[in-house]
C-alpha cells in the first residue's frame, strides 16, 4: 500500500537540501551580528531537517500517530534544554 502511492521528486528535494547547505555556509561568513547569523543558520537547519522528514521519511503521508511519535521527543528535548538554562547559562554570567 505504501509502495503504490505518489511520492515526491526525490532529486528535487536533494537539490533544495544542497542549496540550503550552501546557503548556511555562506550565511556563516556574512558580516551580521553573531546572534542573527546563528538564528539564520538554525532556521536553515530546521528547514533541511523538515525536508528530509517530510519527503524522505514520508511523514507527509503518515497519520497523526507517527507524527506524535516524531514530534513529542523533539518537544521534550526543547523543554529539557530550556529547563537547563537557569543552572548553566544564567548561572555563570
Amino acid at each position: 500500500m505504501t509502495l503504490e502511492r505518489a511520492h515526491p521528486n526525490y532529486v528535487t528535494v536533494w537539490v533544495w537540501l544542497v542549496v540550503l547547505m550552501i546557503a548556511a555556509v555562506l550565511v556563516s561568513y556574512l558580516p551580521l551580528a553573531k546572534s542573527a547569523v546563528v538564528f539564520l543558520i538554525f532556521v536553515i537547519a530546521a528547514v533541511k531537517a523538515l525536508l528530509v522528514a517530510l519527503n524522505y521519511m514520508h511523514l507527509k503521508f503518515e497519520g497523526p500517530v507517527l507524527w506524535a511519535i516524531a514530534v513529542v521527543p523533539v518537544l521534550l528535548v526543547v523543554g529539557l534544554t530550556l529547563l537547563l538554562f537557569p543552572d548553566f547559562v544564567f548561572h555563570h554570567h
Partner: protein
Amino acid sequence: MEASVATRTAPQILPGKVGVWWFLASEIMVFGGLISSYIVARLASSGWSAEAAHLSVPIASLNTLVLLTSSMTMVLAFGAVGRGDRRGVRTFLLCTILLGLTFLGIKAYEYSSELRAGFMPVTSPFWNFYYTMTGLHALHVLAGVITNLSLFVAARRGLRNAHRVELAGLYWHFVDVVWIFLFPLLYLT
C-alpha cells in the same frame, strides 16, 4: 460505535514502521540529551567559537554533501522497491553504502588531521563534545552501513524482504537529520 474506532486504526500500518519510529523517538532523546548539554555548556562559557574555528568548514561541507546525497540514493532504493526493480534496489543500496563509507573515510581524515594539530578529546570542553558527538554519530553511520550491506546481499536473492529497505531508510535519514544539526552546531557557529 467503539468497535469501528478500533478497526479503523488497526493494521493499516506496517508493524516494522511503527517499531522503527518508536526506536527513532528514543534515539532523538539520546542525541537530544547530548545536544542539549552541548548548547547549555557552550552558552555558559565563552571562547568556544575560537576553538570551533580550528575545524575545517570545507571538509565538513563536503561531508554534509556526501551524507545528503546518500539519503537521496537511499530513498531512490526505496522507490525502486516500489517498482519491483531489483537491479535498481541493489544499485542504489550500493551507492548509499559507498557514500556512507566515504563519509566515514572523510571523517577519519578529519580526525587524524585534528589530532595531528594537537586537538585531543581531552583538550577542552569544546573538544570533549566535538569528539563525543561526532563519534557517536559516526557509530550510527557505521551501523547504517552494515544494515544496508545486509539488505544489499539479501536483495541478490530477490525482493521478498524488501519492505526492510523502507525501515532501514527511516533510520538512515534520521542519521542524516542528526548530522544536519551537528554540522551548524559544531562547525558554523
